[in-house]
């Protein structure tokens, strides 16, 4: 009997149940915790609770010299290290007025697109796993492995790349690397088609994603969504097109958009983005310029006094660094505009009225990484 009282006393109302999802839950992609108010299976409200992975990175930046910050950016969103590096060094370079050699810019572009593929592959794997399709996880990770092998060959690391420096690239490409990248780029379209055969037309997959987590274009803009969640709602916004950096104005690619702003459209957008990334990579392989990979920058970086905001189109959305310098060798303040954090804000809006199963589908479709949310 005491058990019953215990159960009842924790309920705000006999009809409603409050459940704490996470922070140790298989579908919250790390240490996200969501307090969910349920009426049976229906979600009345959901409140994300974050902070379980807070490491004080932004404060740490203030104690380090500029090149020392780069390894710490790797650990923001640990699945998109190249994009983080690119955004950070871009901000410092913009403040210092450094122009990097074209070959360095194109190598950055290649690394960033490979990282986008790797990140989208993880997203697909975990999203499918959350919805209950187990096999795509294994099929996709095999391809991700090839990307990580190429990263490892280039910079020695697979996940935390630390592959860019202020002023250019630390190393040129290794011998034969381009050939191996081309082999990978040539075989991936067939794999993507295979994954799509398992999911795109699958009735259960469509039932679980079409009309789930709908957000209109206006709402998406108001919530500050960027990346695939924004484009899934039909807004053609991509930092690579809008404010080109690192040679993106010299390559051709499309920005895919969805129509309905539901989970299925976001899925289609990301699948198409993978093909567009391959298209960019192919152009890079064909037209990679020769020359040095490092501009002339002083050994000790001392940007002038001032502030700057520089953003890149990360795999998960706009990733920006707001840098304030007091003219010393360390940043005075470095703020990260994380894509995952801002995309996660819309979670309560997206899940309200859905079912418990929709919650995991929507966490999956927002493609969040807690390392970037908590910093």
């Amino acid at each position, binding site marked *: 009997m005491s058990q019953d009282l215990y*159960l009842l006393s924790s309920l705000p109302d006999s009809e409603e149940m409050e459940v704490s999802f996470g922070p140790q839950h298989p579908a919250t992609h790390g240490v996200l915790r969501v307090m969910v108010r349920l009426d049976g*299976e229906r979600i009345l409200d959901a409140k994300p609770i974050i902070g379980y992975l807070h490491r004080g990175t932004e404060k740490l930046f203030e104690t380090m010299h500029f090149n020392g910050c780069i390894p710490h950016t790797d650990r923001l969103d640990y699945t998109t290290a190249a994009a983080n590096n690119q955004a950070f060094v871009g901000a410092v370079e913009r403040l210092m007025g450094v122009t990097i050699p074209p070959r360095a810019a194109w190598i950055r572009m290649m690394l960033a697109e490979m990282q986008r593929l790797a990140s989208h592959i993880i997203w697909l794997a975990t999203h499918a796993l959350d*919805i209950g*399709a*187990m096999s795509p*996880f294994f099929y996709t990770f095999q391809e991700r492995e090839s990307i990580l092998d190429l990263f490892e060959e280039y910079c020695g690391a697979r996940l935390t790349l630390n592959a860019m420096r202020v002023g250019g690239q630390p190393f040129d490409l290794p011998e034969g690397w381009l050939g191996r990248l081309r082999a990978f780029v040539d075989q991936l379209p067939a794999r993507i088609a295979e994954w799509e055969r398992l999911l795109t037309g699958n009735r*259960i*997959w469509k039932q679980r994603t079409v009309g789930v987590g709908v957000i209109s274009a206006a709402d998406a803009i108001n919530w500050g969504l960027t990346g695939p969640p924004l484009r899934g709602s039909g807004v053609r916004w991509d930092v690579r097109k809008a404010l080109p950096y690192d040679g993106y104005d010299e390559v051709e690619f499309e920005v895919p958009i969805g129509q309905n702003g539901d989970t299925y459209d976001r899925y289609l957008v990301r699948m198409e983005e993978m093909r567009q990334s391959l298209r960019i990579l192919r152009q890079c392989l064909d037209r990679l310029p020769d020359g040095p990979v490092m501009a002339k920058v002083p050994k000790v970086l001392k940007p002038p006094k001032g502030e700057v905001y520089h953003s890149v189109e990360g795999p998960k959305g706009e990733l920006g660094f707001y840098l304030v310098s007091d003219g010393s060798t360390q940043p005075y303040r470095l703020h990260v505009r994380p894509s995952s954090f801002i995309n996660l804000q819309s979670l309560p809006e997206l899940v309200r009225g859905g079912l418990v*199963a929709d919650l995991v589908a929507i966490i999956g479709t927002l493609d969040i990484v807690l390392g970037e949310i908590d910093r």
Partner: protein
Amino acid sequence: MTNPWVAFVLVPMIKIVVILGTVVLATAYMSFFERRLVGFLQIRLGPNRVGWFGVLQPIADALKLFAKEDIVPSRVEKIVYLSGPVLIIVPSLVVFSVIPFGPPTTLFGLLPEPIAPFVTDINISVLFVMGVSSFGIYGIILGGWASNNKFSLMGGLRSAAQLISYEVPMGFAVVAVLLMAGSLSLVDIIEAQRQAHVWFVFPGIVAFFIYFVCGIAETNRNPFDLPEAEAELVGGFHTEYSGMKFAFYFLAEYANMILISSMATVLFFGGWLRPFPSWGWLSFLDVVPPFLWFVAKVAGFLYCYIWFRGTFPRVRFDQLMALGWKVFIPVSLANLMVIGAVIVLLGGGR
């Protein structure tokens, strides 16, 4: 066999021990084959370390689970919590007493007179199987409720709703077979398929489809594995169970898969009969003992279970309910009427 002690005590006891042992062992090995097969489907190896190609893996797993500490969480409703695994494992093993694994056999001349390789054949076998196997739901609901865990409770409630919804169309699908066979005894149903010169799957293809899909839902397997949906409910009703108590839930799930496959074999695929039992020129197939035909058909269904698991995403709870109530129940009822009408028109109907 004039001594009643031999006929009514010794022989049934031996049969019970042999069948129980076989089913439990088959259940354990089912988990091994599932892991190897899913591994194959997912371009990985699966367990291959223990013994030759990993064949001793289930034994090692069982030993491990036996050796585990028997944890009872502090806030559970103890009696109900402990009876959950018993309530689910007992019915799922008891039903195998009426499954006809083969025709009476002398075991290649070893026995003086033929002996039936099943415990008993009662004249309401089908009702017995459906009734007793439905009883296992109590293990899930009570286990989920007694765990005092919201996720377990939701898993238990989901499975209650799911099993009740899918029991109905499943029953209607079975009734279609009963109309064709004119008997509730499983042995008679197989005999009826021999006399009809056709497996019931051909006239009853719709009923078979409904039966098998409902069977997947009844056993909580992918794509209908909502009660234990890992991504949503962590482990569902068995989250708080560990050691042998967890093993019982696990064994019961696999035993139920074997049961559903066995029933599908008996009701729709002629049980132990070889393919096309009336075609004389196929009689060379009789070399294979009937028991092996039965096993092969069951294995085919079990393969489908694993195959689905490697392929499909999971449906959502409301979609599962909609499928059961809005599609399967009307279709199975309509199918029943069509089959009944055809039987009457053909002058059947004993």
